[in-house]
């Protein structure tokens, strides 16, 4: 029995949704900047699961889903790189990576 028959699409989608929400939670709740970036990564990867599921279950012949997932991985990596570089820069000046400590700009 192939996976497609054993596991309904909705289960996979639910898994992806749960992961997405965990990531969301992480972004909103975590105080440390690194934690926020983790949450973002989790969100993006949850979407990847979604994409692959859709591809596999609905349109296995076209590679659009796979390609898109690859793109997302790449962009996520680029964003993470830039984000971490920024965190380092901030740490150099302020010695903190707590998001709430950056409040120079407000109002």
């Amino acid at each position: 029995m192939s996976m497609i028959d054993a596991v309904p699409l909705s289960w996979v989608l639910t898994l992806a949704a749960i992961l997405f929400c965990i990531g969301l939670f992480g972004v909103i709740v975590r105080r440390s900047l690194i934690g926020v970036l983790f949450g973002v990564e989790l969100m993006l990867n949850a979407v990847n699961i979604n994409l692959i599921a859709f591809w596999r279950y609905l349109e296995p012949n076209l590679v659009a889903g796979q390609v898109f997932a690859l793109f997302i991985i790449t962009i996520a990596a680029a964003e993470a790189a830039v984000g971490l570089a920024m965190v380092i820069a901030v740490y150099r000046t302020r010695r903190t990576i707590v998001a709430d400590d950056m409040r120079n700009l407000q109002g």
Partner: protein
Amino acid sequence: MITLPVIDWTIVAQLLVVFGGATVLLLLDLAIPAGRKQVTAYLALLVVLGAAAVGVMHAGVSGATFGGTLRLDPFRTAVGLVCLAAAALSILLAVTFLGRHQIERGEFAVLVLFGVGGMLLLVQAADLVVMFLSLALLSITLYVLAGFALPEPRSEEAALKYLLTGAFATGFLVFGIALIYGATGSTTLATIAAAGPGLTGEYRLYAAAGLLLLVVGLGYKASLVPFHMWTPDVYDGAPTPVAAFMSVASKAAVLAALTHVLLVGFGELRALWAPILAVVAAATLLVGNIGALVQQNVKRMLAYSSIGQAGFLLFGPIAASDRGIDALVFYLAGYTAANLAAFAVLIALEARGETEWSMARLSGLWQRSPGLTLALALALLSLAGVPPTAGFIAKFAMLDAVWQAGYPALVVLGVVTSAIAAAYYLRVLLRAAGPAETDAPPMFGDWPLRLGMALAALAIVVLGLAPGWLLSFS
């Protein structure tokens, strides 16, 4: 055997010029000595002008390439030219600013080029994946540009906030694309549009939800409410030329993309997305214009003002008609000119080490420099929508389009918020015309800055007096 698809080079020519130029410039920059980094900027300017020339040359071209994922038509060409104009003017404004603020690094020009390339790609995209890619390119370059003034804490903070919000929004964006892909089986707009009528039941729901998330992902970049919270902080903290560039160019590209997605891809679902967008536009207008009323920091005020302008810009897709598209292009052009002129004035008055850009610095400007005051006046009056500037025609055209589309409440709200906006725009002018409240801040009048300011101001006037040629091309 791999068969390469047929590529229509006339469509990608502009992109090739920009990306090619950017890459070459990145390498060239290594060879340019540290004190002469201005050369990079001028070379970037040349690349931008070259791309604009190519764009004008291919102005009548219409077609698709790369399997239908990249498309060119008069609307895309026009918005692309607006983005290029914004980039050129921003480079002109930034050339000497960078040196003054000791952040003269060659990467600036390269980043701007990549950014504008991303914008062009976004405008010309006809496929959601390409849109995502280009949006990511554009966003990441702008994150770096926002933090360009490091180690200044405000700039770093701006960049970080921008990145966090951007990454967050990207999550929603891709989720939305995934849902759309799941519902329609494709990410190309044309195919999605074709599949539209056949969507029933839960697939329709997925498509609609996906569209909404997609709009969220795009809309945050255009400072739509409630995704606007980054705008005041980022505009305030980023170096002023970067703020200028961001405020106009990214909005233009994103709104063009939004228009394509909504009108081309999901015209079928118009009954669903139009009311929601109308509410979003209304909220954007209100928050933007009301928020600016008590700002003492000019850059923040311009940030809120640009949120308000975004609300107006959203009227274009809502109107969903040829009139709306025409009005959108015109509005983008006018708004670009006006905002860049306003920021140019700020750049002319900004010395190193200033933290808050307070309104008092503009007081008494009339006595010190009538030229700057004139540029400022033209810019603010155009943003407020006072005839005979471009902004008036733009607002009028937008309101007309929305009225014809059947949203009288939006028209009324647009007019009311314009009236509120006039309050804070004119207040700045009054301060500028009044007595000086602080010691005279330094004024910088080097020729690229002046040229940029003059061109922007000229555009405001010319578009205001002779709008016809730009208003009716679709």
